[in-house]
């Protein structure tokens, strides 16, 4: 069963595209120069399922965007059926191993600095680790979807323009600036399993899914709480014909103070009709 996945990502207002620390899977958005980050692809299922997710590298911590990408890549390789958080933690532990390899490669086995920071600062900044949220879904061909999440990135499941699930957060008051996140340092992940949420539900052919990182997710929930439907607007973005439109929309929300000035990402998933 093929899926149509559209992704849009905008860095915070005073940042370059290359400083955007959000990540998307499949990798449809890439920070190249200062071009608008938008992409669309048809994704066919592999071994009966399709994996889609967003991750948000925390502001504090060096190389957080890279860590967000590594986290999603490791989760995308999950082979087992997810039932509980214990099924997810091995993949996040694998991400920590990948992070070590990434640092070795980037530093050419420790012979070059990892960053442009002064030496006294790099050691400690890197040792503190990078942190990220993750909100991912495996869509199975049998009509089931399974979600795993840590932190405050969210997915919204719509059927006939009705929100049937907002997950893992369902109220705008649940957002804050210090969520528990997955760390690149194993020592910071000791309570990780307790903070991973999983869920199972069913999708139908006409359903829409929207993934969003925290600033946009919070705005979506506020709109929903105020009976102001955001869905028509979110469905209108076209990553190919008008890749700039999402950026302009986010900027207008920032201008009016409706969302925080933060890296902001939207992923829209639909099922391609007239197939199967």
């Amino acid at each position, binding site marked *: 069963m093929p899926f149509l996945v559209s992704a849009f990502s905008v860095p915070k207002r005073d940042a370059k595209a290359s400083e955007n620390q959000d990540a998307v899977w499949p990798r449809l958005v890439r920070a190249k120069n200062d071009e608008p980050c938008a992409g669309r692809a048809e994704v066919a299922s592999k071994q009966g399922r399709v994996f889609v997710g967003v991750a948000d590298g925390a*502001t504090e911590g060096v190389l957080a965007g890279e860590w967000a990408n590594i986290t999603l890549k490791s989760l995308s390789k999950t082979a087992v059926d997810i039932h509980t958080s214990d099924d997810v933690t091995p993949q996040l532990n694998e991400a920590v191993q990948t992070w070590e390899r990434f640092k070795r490669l980037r530093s050419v086995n420790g012979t070059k600095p990892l960053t*442009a920071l002064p030496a*006294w*600062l790099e050691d400690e900044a890197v040792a503190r680790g990078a942190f990220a949220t993750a909100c991912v879904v495996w869509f199975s061909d049998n009509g089931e979807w399974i979600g795993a999440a840590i932190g405050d990135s969210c997915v919204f499941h719509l059927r006939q323009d009705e929100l049937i699930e907002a997950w893992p957060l369902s109220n705008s008051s649940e957002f*804050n600036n210090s969520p528990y996140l997955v760390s690149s340092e194993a020592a910071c992940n000791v309570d990780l399993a307790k903070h991973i949420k999983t869920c199972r539900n069913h999708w139908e052919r006409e359903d829409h899914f929207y993934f969003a990182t925290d600033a946009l997710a919070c705005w979506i929930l506020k709109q929903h709480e105020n009976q102001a439907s955001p869905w028509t607007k979110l469905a209108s973005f076209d990553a190919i014909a008008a890749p700039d439109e999402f950026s302009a929309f986010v900027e207008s929300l920032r201008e009016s103070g409706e969302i925080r000035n933060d890296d902001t990402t939207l992923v829209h998933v639909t099922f391609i009709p007239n197939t199967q």
Partner: protein
Amino acid sequence: MPYTAEINRSSPTAFIFVIDQSGSMADAMPGSDPPKKKCDAVADSVNNLLRNLSLRCARPDGVRDYFYVGVIGYGATVGSAYGGSLAGQELVPLSALANSPAKVEERTKKIDDGAGGLIDQKVKFPVWFEPKANGGTPMCQALGLARKWIETWVNLHPSSFPPTVIHITDGESTDSADPTEANRMVGEMMAGLTSITSEDGATLLFNVHVSSKANVKPIAFPSDDSNLPDEYSKMLFAGASPLTDTMHRVANDEHGLGLAPGAKAFTLNGDLTIVVQALDIGTRASNLR
């Protein structure tokens, strides 16, 4: 709503440390283990705060200039207290500060060994500010200099998060021979500082009283002065700003301090790390150590 301006590179904020370097700062710091002079404890504390600020703003391409930082020392002289290549400079962008410590020492800190014990770990400890203890306590002159720096800063950054002043002292101003008059003068200077406002709110003044009295229990961010040990503590409490809503929330939610409403930016022999942690520059993982 005040104190909600975003702190970023295009809208940075200022941090000014005003530090007592009078002769009495050579006295022992009560309760320190191993024993330390007050000036050494204060220098460590200030250098540690500067290190923490740099860490919070560290990114792969360098340190972000969310903050401009100045250090005023007062004792035998009053002026910028930076050492090394920053000597004599006033407000310095954080990236320049991080790149130019006067020296980097190797120190040992205790860390959790993961099995219920503690082990020693060597860490690099940058030093921008050296301990000094000499001369009188020209507090008013120092606060006056801070005021000058702040006025210039606010004129250049009218819509930014307002400046934060962290004033660390062990006590009595020598601006007047009459202690009551000296206290009144200091109170007036503090009121003058906090009257300087950006569009986002009034300058924040943290007063840190480093008391020499034996058996003084550390107090952090009280909402009244009933447990403070002397008139100097009470005077510093009176001049301190109320904590902002964000600082109050971080202190209670993330540090479990259980502060009462109306808590003020005053500590007695207390830790100040929270001041740096409570500044909102984006997401900070709750499991960040």
